[in-house]
């Protein structure tokens, strides 16, 4: 029953003042008939604010929903830490510097070093490959391709961004493995003297394969977001550059790229976040070796998330705790990346906001 306007004098909390005594006018053309019952406006004096009403109820409900986000985050932290600590206490090696993963033994030995290294290395290589290409495609779609081609192509890219990662992982293992193996052998033959291409094989299920699959997976995401940003460049700024005698590329360099920079950074960081947290695609393509090595073509490589997926099945209580601890490290890494992205975007704000 709280929908009586007279009861909701606090409705003005976030908006303009509501003059409750005139609410009758809302009827629109119906003449006031004060004898038909209590007037909507609340009779003689100004209505009192009700203590409980739909308004307070609804406000409370939505505030609770907002607070739920905090609750979940705190719960994640508490429960992960509470499960990780016993395992970390049982660990007989240094968690941060030890490289292999035997948490299920009677004397659990496990460390995050090799896993964290693999996680960061695969993600960084993936982005180094994907970002230039993604920006190229984004520019093609926003400024080079004729509209008739750009619209459907952009749509396809958006769709590819939605394809689940397990599909890319499966493709990487069943299809992409062979060309990458041939390429690795070729690299090893002619560039074997470069440490990252050295080794005696076998090749294939390597950091290279994992990184490239990640790159292909991240590509549509970064492309789709960057394209959107590039398209938002004000046309009048582009025209200003052209009117100064800029070539098309110079126009892009002076207006489109600087304007889109914060958005592109955000897109890249989102891609990096996806790559760091990617589980299945890497679980299917990496060679699962606990080593810190920059050799990208030999069978090997591992990542925190892939390790969780691969070893979860046979983990005992300590093993699960150890995996949860590694998950905490992964969470921390992604958190740092997100914060860094936000810091970069905020720093560029001055120039952006005054442009509005």
């Amino acid at each position, binding site marked *: 029953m709280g929908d009586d*306007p007279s009861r909701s004098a606090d*409705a003005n909390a976030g908006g303009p003042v509501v003059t409750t005594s*005139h609410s009758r006018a809302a009827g629109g053309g119906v003449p006031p008939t004060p004898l038909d019952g209590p007037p909507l406006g609340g009779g003689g004096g100004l209505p009192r604010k009700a203590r409980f009403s739909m308004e307070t109820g609804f406000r409370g409900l939505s505030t609770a929903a907002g607070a739920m986000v905090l609750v979940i985050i705190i719960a994640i932290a508490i429960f992960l830490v509470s*499960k990780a600590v016993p395992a970390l206490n049982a660990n007989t090696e240094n968690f941060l510097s030890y490289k292999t993963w035997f948490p299920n033994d009677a004397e659990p030995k496990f460390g995050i070093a090799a896993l964290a290294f693999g996680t960061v290395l695969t993600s960084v290589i993936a982005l180094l490959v994907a970002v230039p290409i993604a920006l190229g495609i984004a520019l093609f779609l926003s400024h080079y391709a004729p509209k008739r081609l750009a619209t459907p192509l952009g749509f396809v890219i958006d769709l590819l961004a*939605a394809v689940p990662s*397990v599909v890319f992982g499966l493709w990487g293992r069943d299809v992409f493995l062979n060309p990458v193996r041939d390429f690795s052998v070729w690299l090893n033959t002619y560039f074997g003297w470069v440490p990252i291409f050295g080794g005696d094989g076998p090749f294939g299920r390597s950091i290279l394969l994992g990184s490239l699959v990640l790159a*292909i997976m991240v590509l549509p995401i970064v492309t789709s977001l960057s394209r959107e940003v590039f398209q938002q460049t004000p046309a009048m700024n582009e025209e200003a550059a052209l009117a100064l005698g800029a070539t098309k590329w110079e126009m892009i360099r002076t207006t489109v790229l600087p304007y889109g920079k914060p958005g592109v950074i955000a897109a890249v960081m989102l891609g990096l976040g996806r790559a760091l*947290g990617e589980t299945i695609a890497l679980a299917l393509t990496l060679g699962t070796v606990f080593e810190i090595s920059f050799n990208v073509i030999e069978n090997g490589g591992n990542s925190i998330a892939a390790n969780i997926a691969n070893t979860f099945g046979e983990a005992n209580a300590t093993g699960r705790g150890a995996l949860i601890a590694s998950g905490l490290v992964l969470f921390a890494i992604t958190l740092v990346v*997100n914060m860094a992205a936000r810091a970069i975007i905020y720093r560029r704000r001055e120039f952006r906001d005054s442009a509005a």
Partner: protein
Amino acid sequence: MSLLEKTPTGVGMTPDNIRARKLSVVVNIGVAVLAVLLSAAIVLGAGIGNWVLVIVVAAALYLVGLYAAASQVEGRRAARDRIWKALIYSACLLAILPLASVVWTLISKGVERLDGNFFSTSMNNIGARDPMGGAYHAIIGTLEQVGLATLMAVPLGVLGAIYLVEYGRGRFALTVRFFVDVMTGIPSIVAGLFVLAFWVLIVSPWFNNGTPRFSGFAASLALTVLMLPTIVRSTEEMLRLVPGPLREGAYALGVPQWKTILRVVLPTALPGIVTGIMLAVARAAGETAPVLLVAGGAAAINMDPFGGPQSSLALYVYQQAGDASRYAPARAWTAALTLVVLVLVLTIAAKLLARRNQLSR
């Protein structure tokens, strides 16, 4: 005016020097042919690679040659313009190859097991030498888990967004918004680990005589954690697009704020909100990692998401990918195709809905 008359920069153009020579198409093609020939001679002559390397080297040589020729004829600026254009076009070609390969493999390998049996049977009692077996149980699992997750995440997410846009003021709202951002960055496997620690290992034993129990519901909890921030974000964006005068108009009629939100603001923003929700659902449907950790991945049909292990399509793909049976890859690809179709239908519907949205940025 004396200051104006000086022109020390020397960039001014006059009608006498606006004409420029252009690189003719013949030269362009000539450079390309030369690059291919030279590349073939180097690569095949020295025997260091096959036709793939010939193409790669030829492309590199062509770009260098084009730049050199264009600099000679048209000048540095025009040459740079040409080169960047060429690089941007090559980026497209380069990316299309693997992406097209993914799509082609998905379709060509996916249709192999696209039969009635696949959609009507489970993997129960299917041995390594058994060519049949299907994903019925996994499809049921995906639908139930994603459905439950949507039921939980949508009210929570939309209400949370309403709080942020309509009620949230001051420190607390800023904190909530900040943590929504943090939550967006949670890797899906961490969400899975959270539900594993919280629900499967701690809460579920209370209902199951003290032993932890995997369930579809646990998976939907993890998916909720993943969907929630996306839904809050997209809904918030849509609510902010609702013009202020619309709200003020309602307030001026004496309509209380909650009613204004439910009757005026939400309906106006609805298409956009639904689009955001559908995209979140599509993403959740494709998640493998959290389901792998908490759903258990049963081979048999289990209709009850609260009782015992379930599978899901994404998890099914992963399980079949790891299966040694020679019939497993076909099942994996068909399940992947099914999953992609499901996700794409949702995504396309969401995009079409977004196009009809009247509120726009």
